[in-house]
C-alpha cells in the first residue's frame, strides 16, 4: 500500500508528536520523522505542515542563532498544540482499533 497517501492524513499528528517531544527546526523534524520509521515523509510536506500548524496557532517559534551555519527557526508546541495533539491521538487510536478489528476479523491473526 502507498504510504504517502496514509501519511497525508496523519502528518499533522506525527509532526505535533515529534515537536512536543522536543522543540525542533524544519529539517530536524524531517530527520526525526524519518528516524522514527516514516521514510516516505517529504521535506516540503513537513515544512508546509509546520507553517500551517504555526499560523493555526498550534506552534510557537523562535530563532536560534548559530556560530557556523544558518540561524535556525525552532518550533515548539503550545497549549493549543498540545490540545490538538491529545484530541488527534484519541482519534487515531479509535481509528486504528477499528482497523485492527476489521483486519483481525478477516482471518489474519495480528502478529
Amino acid at each position, binding site marked *: 500500500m502507498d504510504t504517502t497517501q496514509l501519511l497525508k492524513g496523519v502528518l499533522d499528528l506525527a509532526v505535533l508528536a515529534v515537536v512536543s517531544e522536543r522543540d525542533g527546526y*524544519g*529539517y530536524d523534524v524531517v530527520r526525526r520523522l524519518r528516524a522514527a520509521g516514516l521514510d516516505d515523509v*517529504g*521535506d516540503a*510536506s513537513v*515544512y508546509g505542515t509546520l507553517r*500551517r500548524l504555526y499560523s493555526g496557532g498550534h506552534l510557537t517559534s523562535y*530563532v536560534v542563532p548559530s556560530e557556523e*551555519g*544558518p540561524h535556525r527557526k525552532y518550533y515548539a508546541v503550545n497549549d493549543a498544540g498540545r490540545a490538538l495533539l491529545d484530541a488527534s491521538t484519541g482519534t487515531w487510536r479509535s481509528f486504528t482499533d477499528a482497523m485492527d478489528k476489521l483486519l483481525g476479523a478477516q482471518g489474519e491473526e495480528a502478529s
Partner: protein
Amino acid sequence: MNDTIDGEVARYATAVRAAFADLPGPERELLLEDLEDHLQEVAAEAGGPLTERLGRPEAYAAELRASAGLPAPAGTAGRRRGRPRLRGSRVARRLAGLRAAALGHPAGRAVAQFLPELRPAWWVLRGYLAVQAAAVAMTPLFAGGGLSFPLPELFGSQLLGLLAVVAAVVGSVALGRRGAASPWARWLVVTGNAVLAVVAVAIIAELGSSEAYDDYRPGYVTAYSLPADGLRADGKEISNIFPFDADGKPLQDVYLIDQDGDPVVATHHDNELLEPQVPMDRNGAEVPNRYPQAQQQLDQATGLRYPGPTPEFRPPPGPVRSP
C-alpha cells in the same frame, strides 16, 4: 565544491520561489524564509543533485503549498498578478528585507495578519478623502475658503458635499472589492491611494492648527513633549558615550556625573538599530551612567543583533590646554 553547491541551491530556490509568485509578499516570505537553509543542509548532507533527493522544484513547491493548506495557484504562470514595475529593483529588495525583518518578530506577524482587516475602513475613508481633496482643490475659486470639517463644502454647499461623499464612498468600496483589472489600473489606484494618504495627513495637520477646531475644545493645547529623562545634544538623542583620553586612547568603565553629582544617563529606546547594553552591578541593578556601553546592532534583514561598531575618535588638530 561549495560554489557548485551554492549555485545549485540558488537555482533550486529560485525555481521554488517562482512557483509562489502569486502569493502576497508577507505570506510568501513566511512560507519560504528558511528554504535556502533547508536546501543548503540537504545539499551538504546528501550526495547527488538536489533534484534527486527532493524532486523537481515545481513538485517541491506544489507539495509545500498543499501541506501548508494554501490554494493551488490561480491560473497559469502567464496570468500571475504581477508587479513587474518594482520586481527586482533595489528599492523592492530593500523593502522585502525590511518586511522580512518585521515578519521575523511575532508582533510584526500579528500586525501583518491584522492589516488586511483594515482595508474596508480605508475604502470608506478613501472616498471621503477624495471629496475633501476635490473640495480643497476648488476652494480658491469660491468664497469661504479653508477646510470644511467634518463635511466638505462643494460649490459652497455642505449638502452637495455630503452627496458627493456618499457617491465617492460607494465607488471606492466597489473599486476595493473588485480590485484593479489591469497592471495599469493597479498602478493608478496605488498612486491615488498615496495621494489621498497625503491629503489625510494634510487635513489632520490643518485641523490641529485651525481655530475652528480650537472652538470645539477650548483651552486644549497639545504641547510637544520632551522625554522626561535622557540625554540630547544639538537636537540629537545621545544613546551612548565613548570617552577617550588625551592620547586618543579609548577609556573603559568611566562613570559620568553632571554638575550636581547626579548620574548622566543616555537616552534609551527599545528596538533601536544601535542598542546599547546597560551594564549591571553584582546584584543585577543597572549602572546606567557607566560608559562606554556595548552596542548591539540590529541586522534588519534577519532581525538579529550583533556587536556594533565603536565610533572613531577624531583628535583636535593642535595641543589642548585647560583654561
